């Protein structure tokens, strides 16, 4: 019964959003996550609009990364992790029986905190995913995918003449853009980013932020960040998590200028951490 009520509310929200031609790409309803006995997320309801950047913010341990990792089932491999509720991608339950997780993760790509290129050439780093998913029929098509992905990730001009050099030889910022190129290469619809800039200097960070802003035209981006300034700079929607609860969500502008909940207010102004 309670689930039915959630569905009604969410449908209404979806209709409202469609009025603005912004359908929800990802919808979470009544999501509870447990690591053994410990409950990490408590009844989270969140709609993620298409072609926007949604920032997930909150103090360490608030559940924002846990939530992010539910969206492409990265928590499946965590021992003792149990997930309740529903998470849909374009209306399809990602936890439904028979969902191919490998295919899901191609649709919902991920970029991690620390750049983690494979110990392979720049070319092979990007070609790896398309090869597994059989996206290229021949070398020409693969070249096309690799170059386009590097171009979209804003890295091509810096690596064009050394595609066979190891990816691990790039600078931190370049490595992170290589990882973004690798994620883009399998033509995902959603890109999850878990603190993508925390290991980068301000210039490399600015380049990634600029890139995120361009990528949102073609992808739905969900980003966990510890930097509130970064959330304010790059996202259009912000969700604030605290102690496993989704406390407040809304337009980024509102969250950072006139949040409604006391806890959001305290967090964004630096009063609780």
């Amino acid at each position, binding site marked *: 019964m309670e689930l039915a009520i959630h569905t009604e509310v969410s449908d209404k929200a979806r209709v409202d959003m469609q009025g603005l031609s912004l359908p929800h790409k990802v919808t979470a309803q009544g999501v509870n996550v447990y690591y053994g006995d410990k409950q990490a997320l408590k009844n989270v309801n969140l709609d993620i609009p298409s072609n926007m950047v949604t920032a997930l913010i909150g103090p360490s341990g608030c559940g924002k990364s846990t939530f992010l990792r539910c969206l492409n089932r990265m928590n499946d491999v965590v021992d003792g992790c149990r997930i309740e509720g529903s998470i849909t991608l374009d209306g399809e339950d990602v936890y439904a029986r028979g969902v191919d997780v490998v295919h899901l993760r191609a649709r919902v790509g991920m970029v991690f905190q620390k750049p983690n290129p494979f110990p392979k050439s720049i070319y092979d780093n990007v070609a790896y995913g398309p090869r597994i998913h059989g996206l290229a029929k021949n070398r020409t098509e693969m070249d096309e995918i690799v170059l386009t992905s590097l171009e979209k990730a804003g890295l091509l001009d810096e690596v064009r003449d050394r595609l066979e050099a190891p990816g691990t030889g790039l600078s931190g910022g370049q490595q992170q853009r290589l990882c973004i190129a690798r994620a883009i290469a399998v033509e995902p619809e959603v890109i999850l980013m878990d603190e993508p800039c925390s290991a980068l200097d301000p210039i490399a960070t600015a380049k990634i932020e600029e890139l995120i802003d361009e990528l949102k035209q073609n992808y739905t981006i969900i980003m966990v960040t510890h930097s509130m300034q970064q959330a304010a700079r790059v996202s259009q929607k912000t969700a604030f998590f605290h102690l496993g609860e989704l406390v407040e969500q809304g337009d980024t502008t509102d969250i*950072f*200028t*006139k*949040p409604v909940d006391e806890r959001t*207010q305290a967090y964004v102004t*630096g*009063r609780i*951490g």
Partner: protein
Amino acid sequence: MEHEHIVTSFDEDLSRLDSIIAQMGGLAERQLADAVDALNRRDVTLAQKVIETDKQIDLLEEEIDNFTIRVLALRQPMADDLRAVVVALKIAANLERIGDYAKNVAKRTLTLSTMEPVGNATASIQRMARQVQSMIKNVLDAYGAHDIAKADDVRMRDEEVDLMHTSLFRELLTYMLEDPRNITACTHLLFVAKNVERIGDHVTSIAENVHFLVSGEMPADERPKNDLSSETVIEEG
């Protein structure tokens, strides 16, 4: 906000902003009172003092300007902290203008003291100024206490000031029609009345900013206005 910042020096910055505004506001309120008192008592010494004291308000505004820019750059405030900094900057500008108007009243007092007094006009101006003074006092209290109801109340009271201004306008026109030798003094008094009325407008603007500071929204409803002096005509005879 009941909680304190994790960075305590940030709290100190914000309370410093509050205390400069309180100091500026107290000074502005006093300047208006002294200026109108000097006008009413034809006290040249007091008028001179008002003119001198205005520099203090200007300096405090400069301090707020520099300090808010520093806080914005170094602290990157968010949410109600951000509103507090921006609102302090705007209120400081309002208070500085209030100071200027008071100073102008004092300057005209020096001129008027060389002329014959005209009717009861200065007493009427003082009544109007008392109303505005109490608005300044209340809006500063509202700012200090984050009291939105009090701020909204001040905002509504500007209508009474407008009414007094319109009636003073008519009164002064009547003196001029009665005796053209009054024209010079009355023209100065018209400006004095206008200055006090403009101070009321700045107080209203401060009240709106206090509303925004507390709620994050500017007051939505249209405020009642009653300054009809722009349309006032007195027929001779």
